[in-house]
């Protein structure tokens, strides 16, 4: 029997599911290897029986926790899809505010009817077997990760930084153009797509393992940038990562202003 796949989503824009649709003809190949049994965005059929759960989005309400736990209990393998599920993503910005005030700002006198909780990535609530990073995900990387899992292997993500991919592409360094970039400390695998289109890496794939804080501090000092300049991007998608607090203190200690 082919492995049964179910796709679920929590607080997110559903743009990562869309990247699966965007595989176009390639999705037909993938459909030959698995049975998609639940995918609310694309099909009417639904099933409680599945082997692989693909979960997009972050947890932003307490009532989502039992639903996620139910998914975990039913799945042999759980994949966190995209930055929101992997590291919390854009929803983490909310955590920097007083949540009562946030509710009142958007819903006014009706605020009480709209529950919310601090944003958490999927892995902060249940065990995650594999993550597909990025906002949005890279379609080819998704296919590679699913293939590895189907072969019974543990998928591996690059452990080097976006900077490496960017240099391989011979892009002009954005720091030299007077811009700020998280390429030196962000996990590679996107092909340095943002710097290749002339814009900053905003760190959506999460911090690379063992980031080199010393050299990053030196880069900041060399280009006259402040810790706030860097945190501006860290806090866009990566605000829930423990590393952000460590970065602040480390950078301040090493030449950042």
């Amino acid at each position, binding site marked *: 029997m082919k492995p049964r796949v179910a796709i679920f989503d929590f607080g997110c824009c559903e*743009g990562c599911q869309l990247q699966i649709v965007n595989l176009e003809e390639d999705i037909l190949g993938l459909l030959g290897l698995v049975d998609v049994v639940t995918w609310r965005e694309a099909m009417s059929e639904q099933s409680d029986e599945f082997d692989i759960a693909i979960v997009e989005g972050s947890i932003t*309400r307490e009532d989502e926790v039992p639903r996620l736990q139910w998914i975990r209990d039913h799945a042999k393998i759980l994949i966190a899809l995209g930055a929101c599920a992997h590291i919390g993503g854009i929803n983490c910005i909310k955590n920097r505010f007083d949540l009562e005030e*946030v509710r009142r700002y*958007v819903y006014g006198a009706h605020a009480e009817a709209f529950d919310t909780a601090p944003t958490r990535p999927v892995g902060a609530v249940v065990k995650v077997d594999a993550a597909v990073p990025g*906002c949005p995900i890279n379609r080819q990387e998704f296919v590679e990760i699913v293939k590895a899992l189907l072969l019974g292997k543990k998928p591996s993500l690059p452990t080097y930084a976006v900077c490496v991919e960017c240099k391989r592409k011979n892009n002009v360094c954005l720091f030299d153009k007077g811009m700020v970039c998280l390429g030196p400390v962000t996990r590679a695998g996107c092909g340095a797509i943002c710097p290749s289109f002339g814009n900053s890496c*905003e760190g959506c794939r999460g911090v690379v393992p063992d980031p080199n804080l010393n050299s990053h501090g030196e880069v900041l000092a060399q280009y006259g940038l402040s810790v706030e300049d860097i945190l501006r991007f860290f806090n866009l998608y990566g605000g829930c990562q423990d590393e952000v607090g460590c970065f602040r203190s480390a950078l301040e200690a090493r030449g950042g202003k």
Partner: protein
Amino acid sequence: MKDGTIEVHYLTRVEGHGNIHVEIEGGRLQSYRWEIPEAPRFFEAMVRGQSYMDVAHITSRICGICSIGHTLCALQAVENALGVRPSEQTLLLRKLLLHGETVQSHILHAGYLAAPDFLGAPSVVPLVGTHREVVLTVIRLHRLANEWSDLIGGRTTHPINAVVSGWTSLPTEEQLADLRRRLEAAMPEAWALVDVFKTFSIPDFTRDTEYIALRHPEEYAFYEGDIVSTDGGAVAPADYRQRIVEFIVPYSTAKRARSDHRSGYAVGALARFNNNYDLLTPGAKKAAETLGLRPICCNPFMNTVAQVVEVVHALEDGRQLIDRLLERGLRVEDRAVPVRAGTGVGAVEVPRGLLIHEYTLDEAGKVTAANLIIPTGQNHQNIEDDMGMLVPQIIERPQEEVRLMLEMLVRAYDPCISCSTHLLQVTMR
């Protein structure tokens, strides 16, 4: 059906979570609700304190399907707050990018999500076996639209290089010429889609409805224009509050909107078509004629048909935009802007209808206040009003049929619930 509740908890084949709830007793409609239980995400609150440079990248993440539209609307609002007008080249490229998204999204909805209803399938997957050519046409058009968006915006979803007052990278003239050839080559595919839709039997249901859209004097408005209505009148985007009133219902995390003088109103492809038919390209007018779509059409199920017409329009108008860009020649432009305090409104027609972003910036260019009006949020009240009229007309039919019709009704609006927060559950009791 005489008695019963239709509960569709999480409508499928829509973007986001929504529930339909309908109660029928003694053959009479007792209650009906369109509920949005999607987790609210508080973007209006989250952008406060952020730099004017980052607002578009943040609000792009409201919706994976309309990320290009959100990006452009945010940029427009920020530019209006700063008092800058982008160059002609920037505007032409933005319009071209927006067309890419319109085709992406319309093909996704008409082809992948709505067509299975008309072909009697629960999803597009079984159609691969039964209607392979139709599916391949849809896939090819979708792929083209994605590669179109990749080329101009760097990525199909969450564009990279569109920034305040310009671009961080430009396509080459050769790439644009190649895209033009591909848009031309895709016309037979678009007509194949028109021919498929011509065979669908669209439910016959009309309800007197107000349709609101942007209108521009020279073009079928997507990127800019005044807010107009089939009830008459026009206001500048900055004065949107004169026409649109936001309100909240407790069973929906999505804010709703009503018109200044009616209950609900509709936005989207049919609203644009009804207000701007005269400005469609000749091919799009011919497609409308082939599909039996004439303004003013008050059948909500025809929204999907209007999307197919707009696909033809975008492919034809896209070629004209490229011609104008190639005539001018592409050049790297200065995009420095003066940072100042101010308030600005952006208004863009995204695939599902009129989108409005409003931001107030302080002297340092940081956001201090934000208001976002989302197309699906504007349609929620109208969907519910349609349900109230549709159910009594079909109440004699079996429960399963009533449920399917209600699902198709909501799906026809192509609701994007992540945007408005998320949508669909039909409860019949």
